[in-house]
């Protein structure tokens, strides 16, 4: 355990040191280059704003109204039919929509059922194995001004579905 946490804490500083050392060796004016590159950061973050506000408000309304819970209630029998514990269903649905929302649900599941229970482990694996599709699509395409999403969202959501199913299968196989 300590090895992995140590690795994680050392990783970022080491990465920065390597970039700075290599840049200096190659005689790049590092500070000037840093400032030049950093200038883009502000405008990029601001350009994402309308996309993120629009998407986050819509998702929050859907959640706060209780429609999300109703949807979960509706497909629960279907999911338990494939061997997925119904407790993790909200997490599976929340994962592509909201990163912080999913993290909250996952924390709750781990605390309620215990980190070493089947549900707790399944929640952990589900949280760790996919990313927030809606956020990624909104931010990445928003930042460069792509307004038509094309097949991107479909690909992302289908991959999320595969992710949930493989998480259930793998956790059942490894810890079942």
């Amino acid at each position, binding site marked *: *355990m300590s090895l*992995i946490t140590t*690795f*994680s804490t050392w*990783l*970022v500083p080491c990465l920065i040191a390597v*970039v700075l050392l*290599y*840049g200096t060796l*190659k005689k790049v004016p*590092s500070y000037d280059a*840093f400032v030049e*590159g*950093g200038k883009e*950061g*502000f405008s*990029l*973050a601001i350009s*994402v*704003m309308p996309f993120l*506000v*629009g*998407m*986050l*408000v819509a998702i*929050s*309304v859907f959640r*706060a*109204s*209780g*429609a999300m819970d109703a949807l979960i209630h509706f497909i629960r029998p279907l999911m338990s039919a494939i061997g997925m514990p119904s407790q993790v269903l909200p997490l599976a649905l929340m994962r592509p929509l909201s990163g912080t929302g999913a*993290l909250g649900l996952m*924390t709750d599941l781990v*605390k309620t059922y*215990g*980190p*070493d229970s089947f549900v*707790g*482990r399944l929640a952990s694996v589900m*949280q*760790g*194995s*996919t*990313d*927030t599709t809606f956020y*990624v699509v909104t931010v*990445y395409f928003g*930042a460069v001004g*792509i307004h038509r*999403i*094309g*097949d*991107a969202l479909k*690909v*992302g959501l289908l*991959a999320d579905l595969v*992710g949930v199913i*493989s*998480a259930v299968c793998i956790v059942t196989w*490894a810890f079942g």
Partner: protein
Amino acid sequence: MINLIWVALFLIGMGYAAVNGTMDDVNKVLFSSASDAVQICFGLVSILIFWLGLMKIAEKSGLLDKLSNLFKPVMKRIFPEVPPDHPAMGYILSNTIANMFGLGNAATPMGIKAMEELKKLSGGKATPSRSMITLLALNTSGLTLVPTTVIAIRMQSGAHSPTDIVGPTLLATLCTTAAALLIDRYFYHRRRRKK
């Protein structure tokens, strides 16, 4: 399609609230979530400035090119439309690597930068190119080697061995990424047949 989903989230939510008397909650969240989104964006400012600045050094010193050379054979297959020596490849790679190590805040700036380069490649069109969709698929499938946040939460809740999910998570994320790339290929060929 995104327009439809967006409107549907609102209308279904409001309709449901009207029937079930949760309009109060909807009202509350309507503006608090808007300010949350702005908060997230301001949180992005510092991260974007820092990592984009650092990446500029890596780009100018040729470190980024070195990195992309290393993984060229794999990346050429995943992104057949990107010339191997194009700067986009370097950014795609740093994005993927940052994701793998769970450095979400470093991955986003590099992903955005890669998208910018890919947009230049596609001639600045407002519709996503094939490579853009592939990059997105790679990111939404969340290829992670060490899920640091999850481990931290498991530690807090007193797990016997908080890291016992690392192996299964790695397997699951590999499945998801492989599936994402396959699904992406399928949609690409479907688009081509339509044309």
